[in-house]
């Protein structure tokens, strides 16, 4: 085990404390926050062309949010004690409030917004369907069956209000995750005031890319035409978010290089050594520069719809991989060097076990299974036309 060490590390530091499961945690929460922000563009900022992805974005956010805490809890030394964080939160801890932020976001923002958005359909489905599903939808209406225009107007108003609350909540959710890392003064790779901001922008990048990817896959599987105006608009937002994110990360690195504090030497070795592939190639190269150049090219030069679709699909997939590696570089990268600042340890990812690659894949696949289930339960394409209701 000591062969894993270069230079000098404190003896307790040989094992990485936060493994790939904690990489997934900011990754998944970021996807949630980003997808929600995209949905809110339609609802609050009235970007009407995004209408086809509004519900998909919300449901995708919900599917991932339902899984967000699982890697965290399963990583705990005492998983069965996780509820202590809810019942006796220690208020000076940046981590203690996560449970509340999470519940707030899940119960108050996402579930309520989706419920208000779907309420009319739930009532109608509970009347149309027969057998078991009739009861399921009946339960989902929570007994509120009033679909008079007046009631629907209220749904719309409340849904709008929730989205307005939801935007700062999404920023809070992920900025807060960034703060959990950024506030650790003992770790110079994490400890930067920009961390929450970078987390918010990278969340937007990954969430927008996810919705883009999911929207294209849904239409591909359902053999439906993709609304290209909508897709082009998402691509434009993705490009803007990517550029902002890239600028922020660049600023962070330039700042580190120029200030060249005590920790600079070890971080320099880290970046040029153990993180070469994951940082320069996967995160910045594949995950940022290639998509930025591709999307910028498509903005500047007219291309046919087919080519655009293919490039959008590739770009969104690359961005999703790139942001995964961004989380990797933060979480794993921050633990590869010793706090003595004169040594490195090594992280070997195992294939099996609760912290292995297979389990990671499971945690990444489960949200998609939940998404499929939710899309089956609440199919956006089978919703009742809105002409009889309020005009959104």
């Amino acid at each position, binding site marked *: *085990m*000591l062969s894993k060490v270069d230079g*000098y*590390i*404190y*003896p*307790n*530091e*040989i*094992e990485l*404390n*936060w493994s790939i499961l904690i990489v997934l945690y900011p990754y998944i929460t970021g996807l949630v926050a980003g997808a929600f922000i995209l949905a809110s563009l339609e609802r609050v900022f009235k970007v009407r062309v995004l209408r086809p992805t509004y519900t998909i974005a919300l449901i995708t956010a919900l599917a991932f949010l339902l899984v967000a805490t699982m890697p965290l809890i399963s*990583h*705990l*030394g*005492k998983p069965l*004690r*996780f509820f*202590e*964080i809810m019942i*006796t*939160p*220690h208020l*000076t*801890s*940046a*981590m*203690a409030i*996560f449970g509340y932020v999470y519940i707030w976001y899940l119960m108050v923002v996402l579930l309520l917004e989706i419920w208000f958005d779907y309420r009319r359909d739930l009532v109608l489905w509970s009347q149309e369907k027969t057998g078991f599903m009739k009861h399921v939808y009946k339960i989902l209406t929570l007994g509120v069956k009033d679909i008079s225009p007046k009631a629907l107007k209220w749904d719309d108003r409340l849904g709008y209000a929730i989205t307005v609350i939801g935007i700062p909540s999404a920023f809070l959710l992920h900025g807060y995750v960034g703060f*959990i890392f950024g*506030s*650790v*003064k*003992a*770790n110079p790779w994490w400890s930067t005031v920009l961390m929450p901001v970078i987390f918010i922008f990278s969340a937007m990048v990954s969430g927008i890319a996810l919705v883009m990817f999911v929207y294209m896959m849904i239409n591909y599987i359902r053999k439906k035409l993709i609304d290209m105006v909508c897709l082009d608009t998402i691509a434009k937002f993705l490009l803007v978010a990517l550029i902002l994110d890239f600028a922020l990360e660049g600023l962070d690195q330039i700042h580190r290089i120029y200030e060249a504090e*005590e920790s600079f030497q070890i971080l320099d070795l880290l970046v040029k050594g153990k993180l070469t592939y994951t940082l320069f190639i996967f995160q910045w190269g594949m995950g940022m520069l290639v998509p930025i150049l591709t999307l910028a090219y498509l903005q500047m030069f007219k291309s046919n719809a087919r080519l655009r679709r293919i490039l959008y699909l590739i770009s969104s997939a690359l961005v999703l991989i790139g942001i995964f590696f961004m989380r990797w570089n933060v979480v794993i990268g921050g*633990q590869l060097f*010793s*706090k*003595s*600042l*004169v040594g490195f340890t090594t992280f070997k990812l195992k294939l099996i076990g609760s912290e292995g690659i297979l389990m990671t894949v499971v945690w990444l696949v489960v949200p998609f299974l939940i998404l499929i289930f939710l899309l089956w339960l609440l199919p956006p394409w089978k919703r009742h036309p809105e002409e009889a209701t309020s005009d959104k």
Partner: protein
Amino acid sequence: MAKSEVKSRRRFLTDAALLTGGIFVASGLTPFGKLLYATERKNPNGPWYGMGIDLEKCIGCGRCADACKSENGVSREPFFFRTWVEQYTILNDGSVKITSPNGGIDGFQQQVPDADIFKSFFVPKMCNHCEKSPCIQVCPVGATFDSPEGVVLVDPNYCIGCRYCVQACPYGCRYIDPDSHVVDKCTLCYHRIMKGQLPACVEVCPTGAKIFGDLNDPNSDLVKFKKEYSWQVLKPHMNTDPKVYYNGLRAEVK
């Protein structure tokens, strides 16, 4: 005298009185003092424990690390230490070599030829029982806490094993116990010091390099140590106010 002049003078007097009174009231409010940590005297009526380490006296025998493991039932694997000893070798070319094989328990073998050595010395490390400990700050459930005597402790029945405190400790003093899966660290041998005994590492040190004592007691060995030597703490820029004070600490020490 014009009427307006009287009015303005009266207003001046009222304002001045209000301002003076305000300053008096404000200066009487204790919370302002709390902005400065230094103004807060911890546990004024009881002991406030800390440790002095005299590097001039440490011979690197590693008995402290060994005794600690025996006394506290710490895993014998070489990756779990409540206290350990580091050997620093400064070479003639200015480069620094640091080692701590098995925490120093098995002693040290100098690998650098004598002719190349500028200076060599040992540094025992342990939890600094910081006054402003980041580990306590970040614990999400409050499982790690300051005892009334200023000892940073962990409640193993309450810790959820999230490892945030391990990340937050700048000194690498915490680890996850391989058996209980909760965090573990130096307790300053709380079970011993509460009975008036010395911590195990202090007890076994053959040269008296570790000085345990009460910072609130002007006659304690530790206070005398602090008066006598120009002590330093580890990583002072972290602003954690460690209560482990080193004599002879060189800038090379990490």
